[in-house]
């Protein structure tokens, strides 16, 4: 046994009381602050559920074709959509997609500026890196409980948890992409008298875009990985079906919903990856440096 040096109970009580105090005094304000997220998520969900299934299938297949310029991925998209429809999982799939897209969009809006800031300041990087590590490794239930206490069970804590989990790779890859832009190109730009803003928008971001897109790909994948956990606190969707399948020992329900999540993951992974590759060829990075 490890000997008890100090009594840690007051510390724990302080943390718990502190949280309770925040819940008691600030939950209204925090809810108001999070309301844009709720509006975004609800709008997306209504839009996706309200759109006819064939239109969504056609749009996704079209995007898949634009990204890959081949017929395999569009075919896979159509088959997956038919599968989700036939298995009576359409609405759940749209709910999950809405959550994933809302989380990814929010993560992009937050992560890219943070990544830019990190790339420009060593001090910021030193603070942000352990924070990002924490966000990625802390078991999500640990921050789920306080968020549920503040916002109540529902879509908002689910969305916040998804963002917390999914944003770090995009921040990291934005920072990495910006910093690994060829220093010779940056110096040339400086020599012609460019301002920091001209360099960021005209040189760094365009050249880092493939890496940033890889970050967006990671973020979508990690957002999908969170759907089961998110459904535990009321996000609904495919994750909820999996959860119910486990609860009722209905293997089939869990299996089909699980396959639906996998199908969505494959579709979004391939689409974002192919756009990244296209971009890379356009910039000419994949042709080898001379």
């Amino acid at each position, binding site marked *: 046994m490890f000997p008890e040096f100090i009594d840690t109970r007051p510390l724990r009580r302080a943390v718990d009381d502190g949280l309770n105090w925040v819940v008691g005094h600030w939950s209204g304000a925090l809810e108001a602050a999070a309301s844009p997220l709720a509006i975004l998520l609800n709008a997306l969900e209504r839009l996706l559920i309200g759109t006819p299934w064939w239109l969504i299938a056609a749009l996704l297949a079209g995007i898949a074709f634009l990204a890959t310029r081949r017929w395999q991925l569009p075919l896979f998209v159509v088959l997956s959509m038919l599968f989700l429809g036939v298995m009576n999982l359409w609405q759940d799939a749209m709910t999950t997609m809405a959550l994933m897209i809302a989380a990814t969009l929010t993560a992009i809006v937050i992560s890219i500026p943070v990544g830019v800031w990190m790339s420009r300041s060593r001090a910021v990087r030193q603070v942000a890196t352990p924070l990002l590590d924490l966000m990625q490794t802390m078991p999500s239930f640990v921050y789920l409980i306080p968020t549920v206490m503040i916002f109540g069970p529902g879509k908002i804590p689910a969305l916040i948890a998804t963002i917390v989990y999914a944003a770090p790779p995009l921040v990291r890859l934005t920072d990495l992409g910006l910093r690994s832009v*060829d220093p010779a190109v940056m110096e040339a730009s*400086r*020599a*012609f*008298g460019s301002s920091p803003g*001209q360099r960021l928008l005209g040189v760094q971001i365009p*050249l880092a875009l493939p890496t940033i897109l890889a970050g967006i790909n990671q973020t979508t994948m990690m957002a999908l990985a969170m759907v089961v956990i998110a459904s535990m606190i009321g996000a609904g969707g495919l994750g909820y079906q999996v959860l119910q399948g486990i609860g009722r020992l209905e293997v089939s329900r869990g299996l089909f919903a699980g396959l639906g999540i996998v199908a969505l993951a494959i579709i979004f992974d391939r689409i974002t990856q192919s756009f990244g590759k296209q971009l890379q060829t356009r910039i*000419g990075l994949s042709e080898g440096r*001379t």
Partner: protein
Amino acid sequence: MSEVRHMDTRTDLAIRMRGVTKIFGNAPEEALALLREGVSKSEVQARTNQVVGLDDVSLDIEKGQIFVVMGLSGSGKSTLIRHVNRLIDPTGGEIVVNGIDVLRMTQPELRTFRRTEIAMVFQKFGLLPHRTVLDNVAYGLEVRGVAKKQRLEEAAKWVEIVGLAGYEHSRTRQLSGGQQQRVGLARALAMDTDIILMDEAFSALDPLIRSGMQDQLIQLQKDLNKTILFITHDFDEALKIGNRIAVLKDGSLQQVGKPEDIVLKPANEHIEEFVRDVNKARAIHVRSIMERGVTEPCEQAVSIDARCEDVLPLFADHKWVGVLDADGQQVGRVTARQVIMALAKHTPPPLAA
């Protein structure tokens, strides 16, 4: 002090450096103080853990000439050229470009200075891979804020002058090294600045293409009368294009002078080593050995800027070769014998077998 400054503000100088010293490291003051006391560079480096990049470099670069700074890798030549447009800030010294003290400039002033007064060509080209050739050439003008239509017209003109017509809409990575450097050169020329900095601009190119680029640069300089500060590690290149040459070693200047001065009167052993293998026929100008004065016109003639290597082939059919000034007037003549004597005089005897 004011007297000195007055004497130094010569209007024919494009770039003037006085006592420029650069120390890389986190505590340059200490190292600088030691250097000023006369402690050697290696000693300073060992004692303070700071690296001396440039040591008390003073240069006068006149307008309208190609000034070559020659040195081996690690000699500080790339550091030197980056001081002129302050891509690197010196630890000490004074840098005046076109009569303006570069070191006193604020950031916005420095940006304006870089946008309007000085252009640069890089060894690794530094082109923007996500843009077309035309957009790359227009980049400097874009940064300057020139309207799109105007800057693309200007860029198209320079793309054609450097011989890349037809490649306007190619990506830079699709081009060969020589073509990429033409883009870099066109980008600098499009700025229409009086001063162009060229940092080992031709070093990454293969010999044939390099030679072609050198000829083109000499021609462009004649047509446009720019001041070009050219950095190279290649002594032959320095001799070919330089009006004046400065030799740099371990961050300090060894010798500054006309190409012939350096070849014929090397200041120290280090320069002698370079000179030993150099093509003397390229270094020695006809004007320095010719017989001056009015003589009967010769059948064959060369310009006053010709070098021995230019006249040598002519002696196969002619005894005398005339030398013409810029207006085409014959101002002297030269014989094969004079050329051979000059070459023999400055070629060290072969090592005794």
